[in-house]
């Protein structure tokens, strides 16, 4: 008997079919990579264990990090939009761009302590880009997350 005809293998094949990536993942990735810069460092989402699985409730703190930079953002819902209070470590007057799918982007510059504020940011699939200033160079991008 060929293994491919095997019941257990067929079951595994069904499992693999069932365990498909979330329907919107491809679209989110396509959004995330549709950026001008290609020489980017991808920051990883450092989710706290207590927050695992909790996403998109509109409030809370999210941390992304990569070797050169940690990006902390605190979200506050304000009606249909939200306010983003951000903090970049190491501090510096880095340029910050927040892209929201179908809503264009909002840009600002962090102050010398690495803090930045953006108000009235539309909710949706969101990505943050940080163009590093000072001794650091390059662009750090976060994954596209639904905020």
């Amino acid at each position, binding site marked *: 008997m060929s293994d491919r005809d095997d019941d257990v293998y067929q079951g595994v094949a069904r499992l*693999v079919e069932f365990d498909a990536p979330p329907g919107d993942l491809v679209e989110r990735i*396509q959004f995330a990579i549709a950026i001008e810069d290609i020489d980017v460092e991808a920051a990883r989402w450092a989710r706290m264990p207590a927050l695992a699985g909790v996403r998109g409730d509109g409030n809370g703190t999210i941390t992304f990090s990569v070797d050169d930079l940690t990006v902390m953002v605190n979200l506050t819902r304000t009606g249909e939009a939200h306010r983003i209070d951000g903090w970049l470590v190491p501090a510096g007057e880095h340029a910050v761009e927040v892209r929201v799918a179908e809503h264009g982007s909002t840009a600002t510059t962090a102050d010398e302590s690495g803090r930045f504020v953006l108000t009235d940011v539309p909710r949706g699939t969101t990505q943050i880009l940080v163009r590093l200033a000072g001794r650091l160079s390059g662009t750090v991008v976060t994954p596209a997350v639904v905020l």
Partner: protein
Amino acid sequence: MADTNPPWEGLDGSDRHAACMVAARHGNRKALDVLVAELTPLVWHVARGNGLDKASAEDVVQTVWLALLRHVDRLTEPKALVGWLITTTRRESYRARQNGTAQVELSTELAEQVLSRDPMPEAEALREERDQDLWIAFSRLPRRCQELLRLTVLAGRAEYQAVSEALRMPRGSIGPTRGRCLNTLRTLLSDDEGDVP
């Protein structure tokens, strides 16, 4: 017609991916979208097979594709894309596991899914139960086996010819390592059955 056919049209497997990579190097962003659409299931299953829960797998899949952006110009052999994706995903999955937030028992995920379902017909419920036993047994396999079996299923599909090429896994054959993984799975399943009188 203003648009000529894209250079990857009509190509399959690694030739198709190579044509997309070359087009992407020349600034064709559509080419990357094609790769993302066609190969995200591969990256996903490598992440899941390496012990990540769904949320962490999503993060890792995005990280891998963002990492590809800077490698578009650096991958010396565009045909080797599938191999690069698999290796990079394994490394990122390992890193996510080291962070310690990435693992949820598969059985917990299943329980959540089942609880959220409406009542279903008996035949379907039976099949569901069989599948659950299988999933739980599958999640106890060594990660190497989980990844291999997931990739074997993908490689068995015509559109994943490049996966079977990258793994040197001729379509229609399973090979001794995969056979051993299936045997381990059978043993885990029959152990479970032994528990229930």
